């Protein structure tokens, strides 16, 4: 499943890069993502945000990101090492303004490391599916930031889903605009 997801991600961005319509007047930002799950870990990583006129005049933003407790709570502690591979799309209200409101859907793949064979009985892989809403601000210089709250519709249940997949999370993303046409 992880491989399928990665192939899909690369496919999506290959499409973006090769489709002329898709790249008409586009913006591509790369940056850092900081995520705090309610009552659980900090999971940090990197993300990409893409939009173009083709995407309803930049009202739709496509995103992908990777965040892990390896770069957060598990750094130098006993926190469980877990990874989130996410792709998603946002709808931007006030998309022509610097200050925007976003609402989006994400999907992806979640995994945590059981570390010892005796814990292999634990469910540690899951599909991700979440809703997200928040604020986005485009600075005068080529940077942007978003602050959002999300809700994982799939979360741990003690039976078949990973126990450290919690419902509510907060995100801060900071992007640097590396390409703009």
């Amino acid at each position, binding site marked *: 499943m992880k491989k399928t997801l990665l192939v899909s991600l690369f496919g999506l961005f290959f499409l973006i890069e090769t489709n002329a319509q898709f790249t008409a007047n586009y913006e591509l930002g790369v940056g850092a993502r900081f995520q705090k799950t309610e*009552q*659980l870990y900090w999971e940090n990583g990197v993300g990409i945000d893409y939009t173009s006129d083709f995407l309803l005049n930049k009202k739709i933003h496509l995103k992908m990101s990777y965040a892990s407790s390896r770069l957060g709570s598990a750094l130098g502690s*006993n926190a469980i090492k877990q990874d989130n591979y996410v792709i998603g799309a946002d709808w931007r209200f006030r998309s022509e303004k610097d200050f925007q409101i976003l609402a989006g859907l994400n999907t992806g793949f979640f995994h945590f490391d059981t570390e010892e064979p005796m814990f292999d*009985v*634990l469910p540690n892989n899951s599909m991700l599916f979440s809703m997200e809403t928040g604020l986005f601000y485009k600075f005068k210089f080529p940077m942007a930031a978003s602050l959002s709250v999300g809700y994982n519709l799939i979360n741990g*249940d*003690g039976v078949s889903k990973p*126990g450290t997949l919690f419902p509510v999370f907060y995100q801060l993303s900071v992007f640097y605009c590396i390409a703009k046409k």
Partner: protein
Amino acid sequence: MAKNTDLINMKNSIGVMKRSIYIWLLVVSAFGISCSSDPEISNDMLDSGFIYSIPDSIQKHLVSEYIPIPTELEKNTPVIIAAHGYTATTFEWDELRSFANMKGTFYVSQVLLGGHGRSYEDFKNATWEDWQLSIKVEYKKLSDKGFKNIYLAGSSTGAPLIINLLTTDFFTTLTQPKGIFMIDPIVVSSNKTLTMVGLLGPILGYTTVELASGETGKWYVYRPQESLKQLMTLINTTRLDLQKGIVLRDNLYIKVYKSAIDDVADPVSALMIYKGLKYDWILYKNIDVEMVDSKLHVFTRLAGREGVTAADITLQQKVFADMEQKMIK
């Protein structure tokens, strides 16, 4: 022109403010409507306060009470202080007590957690520190009376209450515990809605659980949001302590038994405890964890349950025997 613009801006601002006030009024009234009053409690429920007799329990369940002046032989006999889970009572450890009585090789001191077995109001007003206090009081009494082989056992919420004691200086002036057993410890709840209790609690007021007929009068039926918040605080504090790491004494034995499928205490709790409770690295050893093939929460308590299988009974007896062997060897 500028004045007109200011006027328009002001009117817009007032409009936005009005809208905000309406939204807030809507939210506040929604809370008002949703906030539940206290539940209706019948006299056959534990929550009524008429079911469980505290003085009887103290006399019947606590080793410090029924062996007030221990002999040398009794002082050397292992004693387990057994702490039950959230909303439960001493009933949860009755079967271990029966096993111990049958074997005659160890004692079980069944503590009733603070706020439990009393009434809905008492439960609502108790903090997790209150829950823990009865474990501390009994431990100190046994230590003062000269018991030399003191063990602790915690099922479900009983386990984080015991883990928390390891992060304090509680044992410093007392007889050191020989070992700790945990049955289905909870560090992460299987029901993830608990993580939102701060937000949802005031709206819900309380939650209700359905008990089997054999469980009626032995567990609280109603869980006030105040107690759910206490539970969340306790397990989150424990998770953070484990995340930082709790260093164990070299000769403190720890064994965790965890059902591989558990819809109350998420099985990932066992991994967190395994990673968080550590002996000095130079000893090159870890605590014992056994993931057991069970779908029951607190699989050692079978009394009062419906649909108990032969495999459940075998597992229960195996674990009790395992605990006994560890204490008497």
